[in-house]
């Protein structure tokens, strides 16, 4: 049986059905140390999802042409506005999906003991979050995508509000939601504006239109629209000045939630939508983003240096890492983009490992304050090993995965020096050094030296089997991705990223000379034959909605 | 001597405006209610004047219905006022202020 057309639907549906089933499963009131049945359920569901996602790399066509999507499912859904149920993956999203599905069971395991009460609520929300995230990665209809995008906010907000660590949680939840929601409202405006211009939400069509400059709008408006997209994504990433929510949210959210909090969603969205629909505009703002990325790297690292709260340190370290990716992708070089995409995977894995480890510490000692720790290396040899591996991966030690990404990004940034000032590359590179220093310093403060403020409470409890189960796969991946990166790059390369080398078909100036296309169908007739045939097939089911309002009038 | 319709309308407007003013100024709930009745009366005069102008009886019928409705409203309104007075022992709107943020 050929699963290909429905595999993506299955991938989204599985956690959703799991969430519903878990919600219906009554809470076990008799269990003394919190009910485990929901945790087990969630684990089963997430593992099954992971299994399903493995179908993707197995059947992926690694030789596919750029800009094509695989495992597509394209069904009409809503005719006004023309929303289609359009799913598909390409080299960019395929590994991200696997990654997300891979991290989910780890998140469940990480919450195994820490979530003692309201397990049902927790795991239901966690699975919903999973649905939203997978949905974002597979949605090819802008609107569908936006739906998942918004959906991802809700469970996270609730997770923070309900399972937050301190009294600050309600504020943190609201802050998180608003930081994410208001820009995404702007994003919605952009999407709808785009829709009103083109009459479609379909990403491939939009990409084609954009590539051939058939979106009839003044350049300024298009730029503004691209900024609307970019701002929404930038907040989610977060890119340097928009990171206000990160610290609180990371500090409050439980480990499993934190693992998916930052990075990949926003970065993926930038790559997919900002670059896909607004290649010229994105290139236009690239210098700014490169600058912000570089500043973010250095700023995050520097702040992390002075933070004593581990969670906050981790938050700024995350900022620093995602800024790296930003720096990479906005170079618009093949190296930078590949490195950026690869680094998204790395960052997620490393971040996950890091947060799991911090969670373990917290589980044992109930504090994230670095000053309370010290000299734990002797008591927790396994843990310190894992910590060191993670930190080294994060710091970019060769043969571990971080190195590949960072190297590619920095060299990409060197390549594109024409586009921006060398200073930013330098700052970014400096950030790497800072990054290594605060991470190593953290290891030193926690695990070495004398025992911390409460030596008598230090338990001898090293990693248990479950914790080993969480960490070893990650550590193994660090190594595999470090030495066998082509395995991943093969897929990433099929993502047709708009690079500076790629010939731009026309400039902004010539675009204005083109007759403004009125409707999608009209556009199709103007477009070059190859494109038009593609459009024809895609828009055959579409009832050119841009024309609809005019008819209504 | 014939009176322009406009005069009747302006008379109605005067009454209506006085009704509005009374609605806003008066402090006793019953009087406020009365000012609403005054406004309805002004509307009725307008209707009758227009009915005269158009030679259409439907305007008068409208007035008739307004009266019926006013009677129904009076019954309900006064019942509400009574039930309010039972609880609060006052009819002053400035003291009817439990519902505030």
């Amino acid at each position: 049986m050929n699963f290909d057309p429905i595999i993506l639907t299955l991938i989204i549906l599985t956690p959703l059905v799991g969430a519903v089933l878990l919600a219906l499963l009554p809470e076990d009131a008799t269990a003394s140390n919190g009910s485990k049945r929901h945790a087990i359920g969630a684990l089963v569901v997430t593992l099954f999802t992971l299994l399903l996602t493995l179908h993707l790399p197995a059947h992926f066509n690694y030789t596919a042409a750029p800009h094509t999507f695989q495992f597509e499912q394209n069904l009409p859904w809503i005719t006004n506005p023309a929303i289609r149920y359009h799913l598909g993956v390409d080299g960019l999203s395929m590994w991200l999906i696997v990654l997300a599905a891979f991290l989910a069971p780890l998140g469940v395991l990480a919450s195994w003991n820490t979530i003692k009460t309201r397990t049902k609520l927790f795991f239901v929300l966690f699975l919903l979050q999973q649905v939203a995230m997978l949905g974002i990665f597979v949605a090819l209809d802008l609107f569908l995508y936006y739906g998942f995008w918004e959906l991802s906010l809700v469970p996270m907000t609730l997770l923070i509000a309900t399972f937050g660590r301190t009294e600050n949680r309600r504020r943190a939840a609201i802050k998180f939601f608003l930081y994410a929601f208001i820009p995404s409202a702007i994003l919605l405006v952009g999407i709808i504006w785009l829709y009103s211009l083109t009459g479609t939400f379909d990403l491939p069509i939009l990409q084609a239109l954009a590539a051939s400059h058939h979106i009839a709008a003044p350049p300024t408006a298009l730029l503004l629209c691209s900024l609307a997209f970019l701002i929404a994504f930038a907040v989610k990433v977060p890119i340097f000045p928009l990171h206000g929510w990160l610290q609180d949210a990371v500090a409050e959210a439980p480990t499993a939630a934190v693992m998916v909090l930052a990075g990949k969603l926003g970065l993926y969205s930038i790559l997919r939508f900002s670059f896909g629909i607004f290649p010229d505009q994105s290139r236009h703002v690239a210098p700014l983003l490169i600058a912000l990325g570089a500043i973010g790297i250095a700023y995050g690292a520097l702040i992390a240096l002075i933070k004593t709260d581990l969670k906050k340190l981790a938050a700024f370290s995350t900022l620093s890492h995602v800024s790296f990716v930003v720096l990479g992708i906005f170079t618009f070089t093949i190296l930078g983009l590949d490195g950026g995409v690869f680094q998204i995977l790395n960052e997620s894995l490393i971040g996950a490992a890091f947060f799991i480890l911090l969670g373990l510490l917290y589980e044992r000692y109930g504090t994230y304050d670095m000053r309370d720790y010290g000299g734990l290396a002797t008591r927790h040899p396994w843990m310190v090993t894992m910590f060191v591996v993670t930190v080294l991966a994060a710091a970019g030690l060769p043969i571990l995965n971080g190195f590949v990404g960072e190297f590619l990004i920095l060299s990409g940034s060197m390549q594109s020096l024409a586009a921006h000032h060398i200073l930013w590359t330098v700052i970014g590179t400096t950030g790497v050094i800072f990054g290594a220093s605060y991470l190593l310093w953290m290891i030193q403060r926690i695990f070495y030296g004398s025992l911390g403020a409460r030596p008598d409470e230090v338990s001898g409890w090293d990693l248990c089997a479950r914790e080993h189960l969480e960490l070893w796969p990650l550590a193994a991946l660090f190594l595999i991705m470090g030495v066998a990166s082509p395995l991943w790059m093969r897929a990433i390369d099929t993502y047709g990223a708009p690079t500076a080398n790629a010939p731009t078909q026309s400039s902004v100036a010539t675009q204005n000379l083109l007759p403004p296309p009125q409707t999608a169908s009209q556009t199709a007739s103007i477009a070059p034959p190859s494109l038009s045939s593609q459009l024809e097939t895609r828009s055959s089911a579409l009832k050119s909605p841009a024309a609809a309002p005019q008819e209504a009038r | 001597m014939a009176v322009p319709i406009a005069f009747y309308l302006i008379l109605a407007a005067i009454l209506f405006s006085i009704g509005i003013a009374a609605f806003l100024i008066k402090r006793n709930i019953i009087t406020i209610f009365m000012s609403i009745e005054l406004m309805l009366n002004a509307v009725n005069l307008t209707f009758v004047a227009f009915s005269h102008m158009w030679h259409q009886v439907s305007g008068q019928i409208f007035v008739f219905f307004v009266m019926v409705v006013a009677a129904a409203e009076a019954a309900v309104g006064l019942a509400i006022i009574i039930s309010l007075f039972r609880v609060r022992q006052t009819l002053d709107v400035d003291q009817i202020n439990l519902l505030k943020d």
Partner: protein
Amino acid sequence: MSTNLLAVLPELILTLTGVLVMLAEPLIAPGRTRKPLGWLAILGTLASALAAFYQLHIVNAHGPVTGFYATIQVDAFSIFFHLLIASIVLVTLLASLDYFEQGAVTHAGEYFALVCFGATGMMFMTCSVELLMVFIGLEISSISTYILSGFRKGRATASESAIKYFLLGSFATAFFLYGIALCFGATGSTSIAAIAAGLAVTKTPLLGWLAVAMVLIGLGFKVSAAPFHVWTPDVYQGAPAPVVGLMSTAPKAAAFAVLLRFLFNGTGLYHSHWILLIEILAVASMTIGNLGALLQTDVKRLLAYSSVAQAGYLLVAFSSTRNEAFGAACFYTAAYAAMNVGAFVVLTQLSGFDEKLRSIDDYTGLALQRPVLSALLGFFLLSLIGIPFTGGFFAKFYSFSAAVHGGHTWLAIVGLANSGVACFYYLRLLAALYSRPLAEQPNSPTRRIALPAAIALAATAAATLGLGILPNHVLHLVQRATPQNLPTASAPQLSANPPQEAWMDAKTR
């Protein structure tokens, strides 16, 4: 079946139900439960909805039906609102079956009857094409809601809510009437079709403009559009929660139906004039509603201001072309009804007859004690915010895109900005629900939700979700439902002027 009977069938059934409830009420001994009456009312409402479906069947087959000398016109538009109102009433009745068991209210029977009668009035509002009929319907619905809002007798807040609602509602009625009077003055008729014809030839256009403005003021009060919203917070705060659910949706839906018919079918000629007023109303409602809600601590007041804002979003849809405005506005009404009634049903269930939970802080951590209800409330709140794939989202989407197509992009932008502001206060409630209380309370035994209320909740949630996932069908239905003026049986006054000559003849008689 005669056309007349067919035309009023749903209303007739509801009226009979109300009468039956009243007649059956004395048969139940004092002190006994009044639930059977509630079930009777529910059955009646269901029957009325079925009758509306039957009408739809007829209308689909034979086109719109007019009845009673063209005072009412049954078309897809009116049937849509009939069904909507019937559903709202159904849900309200289901939710309040147990509500009145909790308190010592001895008038549960009258409550059910009043709800039925009120719904009759609202239905009449939606199908009348004669302003007199609209007025009567409006009054029936208003008076029953005045009474219902004061139903928790003996509580000072209830009476206060009722009196405020009553006074301001009657005040608004006076304006509405004045508007009708001026319409009559400008055209010599009070039938919407005749007004449309008359305005085209009238020699006193100023009267027409004034009429439209006055009607807008009057109906603005009824739909609680700012700046005519002053009654809303107080009334919602004091009225019983299920009643608020009813009166924040059904009469508003009916009033919007009237507004649509009156503005587009009656005074469509003055579109360029009233559109300005609509814009002012919409912007003021959205802004004042949202800013007001930001300052509230009482949940019902918060939802009251939110309903003001929602009315504003709905009014945005009016700025578009005819068909689109009808589609968007009707869709908005339906979505708003689903989510708002749902929210109030949850409040009813959470808060109980005595409304123990008032301020937002009272809801802290409620999700941990009443997970299902809280999840539903959260869902409705998200829909009110306008998260995609809820009814609230598409409602806003259609409304705003209607505005954009109508060339009022700035209105859509204001609306969007307001939606952003709005999520602040919805979130406060949502976050309160889901934040762990400071002191972890022991798991109180979860009260079971009674079956009728559960059905009501499921229905509203399904409707909200359904409108979010499959908005198409509803939108198609409502867009198809855009009503046309049918030629009236009694020929409208088509002369430009009052019949002076005839009058001269009469004088010499």
